[in-house]
């Protein structure tokens, strides 16, 4: 066999889903028996058949990618419940095998895939989409790029309404239908607490959590996922505040962003200048603005 052909043959088997008891399937990717498929290119030895040797790699593959996805989406797992999450993760990985040299990017298509495949998103699809999007934003905010920040001294509204401001690439701006920030923090806290607890205790806690999550009521929120000293934080924003930041990221001037954000706003016109000033001070204190040097990623 040519090298490319051998590698395609092996990769198809290695990436084929396991059975429900986590063994290699009896049926090969070509529809024939896997025993025959494996013995075509893998040698047996005195202890293991070709099938069994190939199975080691098949299992390693699935254990590795499923574990990586589980680590990245504990919140989605809490929303779906472990059983449904595992089934969803397998379906996701079949549809979206890794196309990156790093496992970091494995979940990059989670939200868009769930949107197109709602049968995997559980009974509350909107909640599942929200939490998946937040968990991906968390990954991006964690190792996103930092440009040299403009500090409060470098900035003042007096610098002019035509001023264009660039947001730090690591800051993600998101709006949700559910308060998923609280949910994710709760899930993490529980995971930390149960790290030392027994298995049955953990299971009971998990089931309780799933029940609590199922009752979560919709409540629209606006969020900035950002960093302070390399730790990721979720910061709730007012709707108008969110709109200004989104407009700035799109390249609008500060004046245009403010005007756009307050269109149809409930905030009384006389209160607006003070609001904007307070927000602006907070953003600059948090170091969210940087010099508009290079083209930055969209939120």
């Amino acid at each position: 066999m040519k090298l490319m052909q051998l590698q395609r043959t092996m990769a198809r088997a290695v990436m084929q889903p396991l059975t429900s008891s986590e063994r290699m399937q009896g049926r090969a990717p070509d529809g024939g028996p896997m025993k025959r498929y494996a013995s075509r290119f893998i040698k047996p030895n005195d202890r293991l058949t070709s099938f069994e040797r190939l199975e080691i790699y098949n299992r390693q593959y699935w254990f590795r990618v499923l574990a990586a996805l589980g680590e990245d989406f504990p919140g989605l797992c809490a929303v779906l419940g472990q059983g449904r999450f595992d089934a969803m993760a397998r379906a996701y990985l079949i549809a979206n095998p890794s196309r990156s040299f790093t496992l970091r990017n494995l979940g990059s298509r989670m939200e868009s895939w769930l949107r197109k495949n709602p049968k995997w998103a559980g009974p509350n699809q909107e909640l599942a989409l929200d939490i998946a999007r937040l968990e991906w934003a968390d990954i991006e905010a964690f190792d996103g790029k930092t440009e040299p920040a403009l500090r409060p001294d470098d900035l003042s509204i007096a610098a002019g309404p035509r001023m264009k401001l660039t947001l730090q690439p690591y800051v993600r701006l998101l709006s949700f239908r559910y308060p998923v920030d609280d949910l994710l923090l709760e899930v993490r806290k529980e995971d930390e607490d149960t790290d030392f607890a027994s298995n049955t205790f953990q299971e009971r806690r998990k089931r309780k959590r799933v029940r609590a999550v199922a009752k979560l009521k919709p409540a629209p929120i606006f969020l900035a996922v950002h960093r302070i000293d390399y730790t990721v934080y979720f910061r709730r924003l007012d709707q108008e505040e969110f709109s200004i930041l989104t407009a700035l990221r799109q390249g609008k001037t500060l004046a245009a962003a403010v005007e756009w954000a307050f269109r149809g706003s409930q905030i009384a016109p006389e209160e607006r200048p003070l609001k904007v000033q307070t927000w602006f001070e907070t953003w600059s204190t948090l170091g969210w603005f940087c010099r508009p040097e290079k083209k930055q990623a969209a939120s």
Partner: protein
Amino acid sequence: MSANRFNGFTDYGIGIGLRAPHYDHILTRKPVVDWFEIISENFMIDGGRPLDILDRILEQYKVVQHGVSMYFGSAEKLNREHLRRLKDLVQRTKTPWLSDHLCWGSVDGRYTHDLLPMPYTFEAARITAQKVREVQDFLEIPIAVENVSSYAEYHDSEMTEWEFLNEVVERADCGILLDVNNIYVSSQNHNFNPLDYVNSVPAERVAQIHIAGHSKYRKYILDTHDHPVIDPVWKLYERAIHLAGHTATLLEWDDSIPSFQEVHDEARKANRFLRATALAEAV
């Protein structure tokens, strides 16, 4: 003998793998360690905490880069995005050499994230060596290829694993990261004498040595890096440095990671063999 063109003519001693559970200990206690090996992929990112920690480590320690996803042996072309990010990191760490595995793991742009074994064929050796050369030219530093643990062999193979290793490094004119634990694991899984392997390695090309622990199952051994080094592996190590000289040595411990002190103590056991070699070289 150990400082050679494949490790940038350095004479590094005993290092350990830089792992997250030890960050705090290293940065606050500043233990004396000859060098750290980092997994390149963990730092091929745009920013954030991992790069900050790396920069702080680099202020005090020597760092060597070790990769897990170059896949020299994959039949498909190299990933340009991967190479570009890797070069940025090489410039940051100033690693004197860079290692990755003699294996494959991706096909048609899909990644298994595993170190899959090569068929030991002349075609595979030619393709692999060509890719090692391309990476070496692009990164402008010496490359060392590491032998992997394997659990399967192919009908297609035309030579032994060590003959294949020789074939690749000669064609690519590159170095070797000799993993003696991987030799031991594969020798058990494929019924060969691990000393035959070690004895056949071109000693002048050995840039670095890996030692590690593994997990034994009923019918095979898995390379899990979650145990101390066992005696037969130390024996192979002793033989390897007898042939290659006082070589940069690194202990890998990636799972069930004990305290920094425990890992470091385990690594420093290599000293007994290194001292004996240094003495032998001196007389």
